[in-house]
């Protein structure tokens, strides 16, 4: 298998040959090395790095959504590993992940910091980590209909932030009413067709 090697890293050099073939690119930028692999090889590679090469500190787990861009797959899950003993040697493992499958084996048994790292990546992107004991929604409400950091989710949301009743006092009771129809009460003149059109236009994802 042709490996694009534009950089060196001791972690790559110490891999056995069968695992080295699973990494198809080693690249670097400003002195920091990244390696790419496919979703199928993620677990074996991470197990090797943790158990045989003593990369015992998982700095972070995150993902990038390449919707609409010219990339092999839609999701790129990034693991950032550090070896505290070997002079804090650091590299990133980028895993290409197919959108329709959208699931990876969890690595919570290798690093406990992956429990919450994967949970947050699931919450933000919808990627499922099989085996993670606790994959509930994290930062968003439990029943939130969507995954915010996907590129087709608009910045201003789909109006979930206005779905609350208004609590007012009427006489000696607190009642719930419908909220005001315009987004903010400051600047009530902004409730015009032009403003509504502007809000609708801004709610689309940025090109």
């Amino acid at each position, binding site marked *: 298998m042709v490996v694009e090697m534009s950089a060196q890293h001791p972690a790559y050099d110490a891999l056995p040959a069968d695992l080295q073939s699973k990494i198809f690119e080693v690249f670097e930028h400003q002195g920091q090395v990244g390696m790419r692999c496919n979703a199928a090889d993620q677990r074996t590679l991470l197990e090797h790095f943790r158990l045989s090469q003593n990369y015992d500190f998982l700095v972070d787990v995150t993902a990038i959504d390449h919707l609409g861009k010219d990339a092999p797959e839609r999701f790129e899950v990034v693991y950032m590993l550090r070896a505290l003993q070997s002079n804090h040697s650091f590299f990133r493992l980028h895993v290409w992940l197919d959108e329709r499958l959208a699931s990876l084996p969890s690595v919570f048994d290798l690093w406990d910091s992956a429990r919450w790292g994967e949970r947050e990546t699931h919450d933000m992107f919808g990627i499922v980590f099989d085996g993670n004991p606790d994959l509930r929604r994290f930062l*968003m409400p439990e029943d939130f209909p969507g995954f915010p950091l996907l590129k087709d989710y*608009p910045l201003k949301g789909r109006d979930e*932030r206005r779905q609350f009743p*208004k609590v007012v006092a009427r006489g*000696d009771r607190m009642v719930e009413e419908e909220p005001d129809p315009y987004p903010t009460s*400051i600047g009530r003149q902004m409730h015009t067709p032009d403003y509504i059109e502007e809000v609708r236009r801004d709610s689309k994802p940025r090109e």
Partner: protein
Amino acid sequence: MGLESLIGGEGFLTTTVNGLVNWGRKNALWPMPFGTACCAIEMMATFSGRYDISRFGAEVVRFSPRQSDLLIVSGRISLKMMPVLQKIYRQMPEPKWVISMGACASCGGVFDTYTLIQGVDQFIPVDVYVPGCPPRPESLLDAVFEIQELVGEDRFDSGKHGS
């Protein structure tokens, strides 16, 4: 309530009692700090030694809504926090006033995103807004003075605050 129906009307006794009640209420506001983010730190600085809010009577900061009458919403309110805010607001007994401190609570502030409420006044009634990101402690003290003026103009038998 019983008292005003006994006294009734707009007489000398009523206005004096009104003035007395208002004087007592405004000089002993009990704040309920609903601090979430950066504004909460400035609110804590207002409650502390240098910008002392207890000079103006609002000393008894008890974190229980059942025992307070001034809700200070300081900080950004997200989707998850909004039901909590409404619950706390409903738990406060009448009469109660609300200060919306900071840009995020008043209008969403810097953050026009999918998860932040663009102004809590859409969902709970607000009496005084304090601009700033975060407002200086002096601005919060100014807001307390405004609330005190509002309280001073209140009529305790007007039915507005449910009495």
